[in-house]
């Protein structure tokens, strides 16, 4: 019995508006709302919604035997919430069937795994929290941004408690090996690896409406046959595709949705099961270890990370961005943190790619810019403004450690105040409990308590994290102001 895992990827970045250098310092809103709205709404109409409905129907028609998995980025979910909220409901319906597994990933579809491990861990946690909050499931299988993976990343995700990771079945890593087995990571053997089968995925994604393809037209019958006739030991086929392939790249009238709907029936006839990665991993044992010293991905001909880190422009932009990672994470400013997420999306760097060989066309097709240089210029202008704002939060001349210790002091003070308050409270209760005693000592005690009370607010002015008491409002500007004062 062979298992097929479908992984549908949904990601949309927050595209930046045209941001000129003279906007730096004057305009702190960076996003092209019109384009973002237009793109996600259009894709939802032609692809995301019909595809989700198709999946729902497939699950119901097959008596919940058809299963698949979804990789959705946090920025995509935010845009659905903003522009196509009904889609979230549809996803919830899918989640409720129990036949759809949600994969873990980075919140903003970022490159943090390559740039900053701590930020990466934070991003993944943030993503998984969002999934848990919306769909009530905690992701167990990890799929990085565009399946970026290497030995270091394996260790990272292993340390975060993931046991399974999906990545690219890159030819230059596998050599003669087939991707249709379960492997384990060489650097962190606890992490099992599922590898994508690009050939079979491309047969759908690229060749389905390619009339010059020698196997055209592709039918569900034929396709399931191919999978069934794979060597017997090959137990799992991982098909990783962008969800907008269905309905957008392959429009509805190509018959792609009917093709999908027919799959479970033929699967049943020929002994091919459509399932989720967690179920597969529970059944299989890794056949071998795989070592990936240099990062791989599922993008471009080279299947490496050169689409985002292939030239000086991209490296400069990435360096500048992640240079302030620690700082931003110390900040409490909500808008700053939000921008921090959106600016990390790998797409911004993808647009800066200067590859002009075979892959150039696909880079250009997705880019809202007319050249990689204007993509870079626009991004750097936005980033410059962002950096100014980070600088305003914490002056650059204090280094991170000093800042950390200052923030720690403030935190400790908060703890101390908490302690003192508890003391005051317990004293007060004591007094109230001291009903039996005479009135005079009680008043005296109360007076003492009042005094202690007066002392604390003075400290509290610089201390936001203090607990609420007597209807007093908590400090409105947490962290930031306190740090500044302490720095002075």
């Amino acid at each position, binding site marked *: 019995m062979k298992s097929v895992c479908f992984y549908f990827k949904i990601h949309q970045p927050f595209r930046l508006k045209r941001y000129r250098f*003279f906007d730096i310092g004057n305009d702190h809103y960076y996003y092209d709302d019109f384009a973002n709205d237009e793109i996600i709404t259009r894709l939802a109409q032609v692809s995301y919604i019909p595809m989700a409905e198709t999946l729902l129907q497939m699950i119901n028609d097959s008596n919940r035997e058809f299963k698949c998995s979804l990789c959705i980025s946090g920025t995509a979910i935010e845009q659905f919430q903003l522009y196509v909220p009904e889609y979230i409901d549809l996803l919830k319906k899918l989640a409720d069937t129990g036949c759809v597994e949600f994969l873990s990933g980075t919140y903003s579809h970022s490159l943090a795994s390559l740039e900053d491990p701590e930020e990466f861990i934070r991003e993944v946690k943030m993503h998984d929290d969002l999934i848990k909050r919306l769909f009530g499931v905690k992701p167990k299988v990890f799929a990085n941004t565009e399946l970026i993976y290497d030995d270091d990343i394996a260790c990272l995700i292993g340390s975060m408690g993931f046991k399974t990771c999906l990545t690219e079945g890159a030819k230059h890593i596998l050599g003669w090996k087939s991707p249709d087995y379960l492997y384990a990571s060489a650097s962190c053997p606890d992490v099992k690896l599922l590898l994508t089968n690009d050939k079979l995925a491309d047969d759908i994604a690229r060749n389905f409406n390619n009339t010059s393809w020698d196997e055209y037209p592709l039918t569900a019958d034929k396709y399931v046959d191919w999978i069934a006739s794979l060597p017997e030991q090959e137990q799992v086929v991982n098909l990783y595709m962008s969800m907008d392939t269905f309905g957008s790249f392959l429009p509805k009238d190509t018959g792609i949705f009917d093709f999908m709907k027919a799959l479970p029936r033929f699967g049943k006839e020929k002994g091919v099961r459509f399932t989720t990665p967690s179920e597969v991993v529970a059944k299989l044992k890794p056949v071998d270890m795989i070592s990936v010293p240099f990062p791989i991905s599922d993008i471009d001909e080279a299947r490496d990370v050169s689409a985002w880190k292939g030239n000086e422009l991209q490296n400069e932009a990435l360096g500048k961005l992640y240079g302030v990672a620690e700082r931003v994470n110390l900040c409490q400013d909500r808008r700053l943190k939000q921008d921090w997420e959106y600016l990390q999306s790998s797409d911004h760097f993808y647009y800066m790619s200067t590859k002009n060989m075979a892959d150039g066309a696909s880079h250009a097709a997705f880019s809202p810019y*007319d050249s990689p240089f204007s993509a870079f210029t626009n991004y*750097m202008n936005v980033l410059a403004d962002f950096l100014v704002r980070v600088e305003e939060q914490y002056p650059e001349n204090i280094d991170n450690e000093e800042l950390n210790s200052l923030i720690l002091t403030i935190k400790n003070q908060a703890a101390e105040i908490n302690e003192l308050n508890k003391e005051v409270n317990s004293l007060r209760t004591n007094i109230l409990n001291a009903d039996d005693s005479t009135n005079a000592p009680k008043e005296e005690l109360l007076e003492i308590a009042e005094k202690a009370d007066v002392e604390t607010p003075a400290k509290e002015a610089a201390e936001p994290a203090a607990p609420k008491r007597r209807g007093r409002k908590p400090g409105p500007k947490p962290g930031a102001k306190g740090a500044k004062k302490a720095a002075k």
Partner: protein
Amino acid sequence: MFGWEFPPHILGGLGTASYGLTKGMHANGDMDITFVIPKPWGDEERGFANIIGACNTPVAWRDVSWDYVNSRIGKIMNPQTYFDLRDHIYADFNYMRLNDLGCIEFSGKYPDNLVEEINNYSIVAGVIARTVPCDIIHAHDWLTYPAGIHAKNVTGKPLVIHVHASEFDRSRGKPNPTVFAIEKDGMANADHIITVSDLTRRTVIEKYGIDPAKVTTVHNAVIPLDDEILNLKRTDTKDKVITFLGRITMQKGPEYFVEAAAKVLKKTKNVRFVMAGGGDMEKDMIRLAAKRNIADRFHFTGFLRGKEVYQMFRDSDVYVMPSVSEPFGISPLEAMEMGVPSIISKQSGCAEILDNVIKTDYWDVDAMADAMHSIITNKALYNTLRDRGIEEIHGITWEKAGKKVIDIYRKVIENRQ
């Protein structure tokens, strides 16, 4: 081939382009090129083409001796060619003003009696066409179209004309009717038309009403600069330098450069702007710079000659060409070869072939200012444009352009048969 200019005695881009193309075609091999110009000086590079001067071609019989001819024009032309040409005089032109060798005098420039000179040039072309056997005739720019047509009528060989610029580019939409008529006549009589950019191609099709199938674009290339120029030392300057270089006329869009400069200077201090060149709008630009209150950081150099041009490139951090309409525009290619990142307008022909430059609309001052700012503040962008620019320019050779022209010749000759 009929041309008007040839290096080193050039007045504009036409000479350089004709020279580059001829050399490139020769490099493809199997080509025998005769290049006719009005007045050779004797110091032209030869070897790849046989240069014949119109001013040395007899149109009336003079009984002169070999030695005499040799002493008069031996430095410029093989006397034997003179006698061959003399054998093919086809009419009596003695009524014209001729010199002792029976030749018409040419200035080789763009004199006031240009139309007369063009006419004379085509008279001479008749003699040359009868003398030199050829398979195809190639005429560069409107000055030589009448000669090309004449030669075509004489020999019956196909005519290819090369549009380096059209009257519409030169006059910004208000063409001189005489020139327009000559151009239109040339295009109508040509078997094929080569344009230096798709921009010019569109002009030819739309403004002159030519069948698109007859018009092909062959982009210009660049002749590698000498080491002497490439090794020029940069003058030490504390500030970044952003340069406009070219004639200061409406066609080149200088006012957009000044406006963009004003925007950049509002935000950035360590940058200077240079407007190099002369032209009818120079005074207006000085006034405009003063009005925008940037005169302290905006400099005018006046007209630059020879090596001064390259020194200017060497001292620049960014080169800007905001041309409103430019058939091709060779100077960004030279700037790039010198390692200067360039910003060019989308309305220039070279924008069609260049990748490692920043392209903006000429009127989009904001975009232009943004690009300038980005290059001078982001080292990574500067380095990328510089390194990739040099690499890219090295790939744009006249040899490839020559190959395309030869392919067109083949097609034209085939169609004839």
